[in-house]
């Protein structure tokens, strides 16, 4: 404002001591000005580094988990046949009960039908086929082959006699089914014979056979053969009647 300025007054004012801020005060203020400017950048850098660290950790953790998975999958692959059998058995077990129009099964009193089972039992089995212990199979075979033996249980002997009588009378399929059911109960594999990998009880033999027969009738021979093999592993000593044999074996 030039109109208000007076040179004399200004001169006198300039004549007063030229006061200056002390150096330490300058340093304090300048340092504060630098801190304010530098700290946000540091924070940005910090958060970027923190985000990168979290990302690296997440990726490493994911990779670690993925590495762990193949081991479990490898075991599952190694146990695939067992699991497959287990699933099949479960699937067989879970199948609804089919109509009980099954042909009669031959009595296990026929030694010819039992002995192959025994022979098979004696042979070393491969894979994960469930099978009864040889001792149990032998017990069953002995009980079936010698109903007249005193130490044999009475039930198999009674069942054998009943079967013989009914065969003579050419019992209808329903009665044959009942016979088969009875035999199935009697000659059901021991608990120890249950496959180790099959926590659930296997399907009842008559139902299983019926299912195999149905597969055969539908022309699904490969599946029928497969099921039959499994059936014989689970129930190696289960007697098959001629009718049933023809149906499941496709002869």
């Amino acid at each position, binding site marked *: *404002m030039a109109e208000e300025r007076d040179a004399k007054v200004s001169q006198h004012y300039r004549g007063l001591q030229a006061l200056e801020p002390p150096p330490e005060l300058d340093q304090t*203020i300048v340092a504060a000005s630098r801190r304010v400017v530098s700290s946000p950048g540091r924070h940005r850098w910090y958060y970027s580094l923190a985000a990168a660290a979290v990302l690296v950790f997440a990726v490493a953790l994911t990779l670690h988990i993925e590495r762990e998975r193949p081991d479990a999958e490898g075991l599952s692959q190694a146990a695939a046949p067992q699991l497959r059998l287990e699933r099949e058995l479960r699937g067989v077990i879970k199948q609804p009960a089919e109509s009980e129009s099954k042909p009669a099964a031959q009595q296990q009193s026929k030694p010819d039908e039992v002995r192959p089972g025994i022979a098979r039992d004696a042979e070393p089995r491969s894979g994960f086929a469930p099978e009864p212990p040889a001792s149990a199979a032998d017990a069953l075979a002995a009980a079936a082959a010698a109903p007249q033996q005193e130490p044999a249980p009475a039930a198999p002997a009674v069942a054998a006699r009943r079967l013989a009588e009914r065969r003579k009378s050419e019992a209808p399929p329903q009665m044959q089914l009942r016979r088969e059911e009875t035999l199935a109960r009697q000659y059901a594999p021991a608990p120890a014979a249950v496959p180790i990998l099959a926590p659930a009880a296997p399907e009842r033999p008559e139902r299983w056979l019926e299912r195999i027969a149905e597969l055969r009738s539908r022309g699904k021979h490969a599946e029928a053969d497969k099921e039959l093999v499994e059936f014989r592993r689970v129930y190696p000593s289960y007697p098959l009647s001629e009718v049933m044999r023809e149906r499941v074996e496709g002869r």
Partner: protein
Amino acid sequence: MQAADEELMLAYRAGDAAAFETLYRRYRSPLYRFVLRSVKNRALGEELFQEIWMRVIEARARYAPQAKFTTWLYTIAHNYLVDHWRKRGLSLVALEGDEHEGGAPDPADHAQARESLARFAAALEALPPLQREAFLLHEEGGLSVTEIAAATGTHGEAAKSRLRYAMAKLKAAIDDG
């Protein structure tokens, strides 16, 4: 060519610390004298001086060149002084022991100058705070009447009147010798 004050402040707002240091070097002495000659003692003056610059630093993010940088700077200083005036009386910094460095070659003139200067300092101290402030903003800060009005939150006529009265008293003190 020196960068404008407003450009430097905008640069500081953008993160350029050196821009602030340039501004500080430009206005540290005038503002220091303005504050010290407006308060009672040197320690308090230095405290206010630091607070004013801290406020400038704090407000950098909100700075917008709507007025001159000096007007904005002295507005902050005025607000701090008003708070100070409300708490205690306004008084000039005691200049005991401060020697006049102007120096006239003639010893007689030197004595006369010293007396004149003493009267001037006394007259400056005796000014009402608002008049003294107007004078210091004008003389030390280089603000115009309009800018003084903006810095002190008053209208132009009031600022002009204060400055006129201040100048008249100081001139009279000089002429009395």
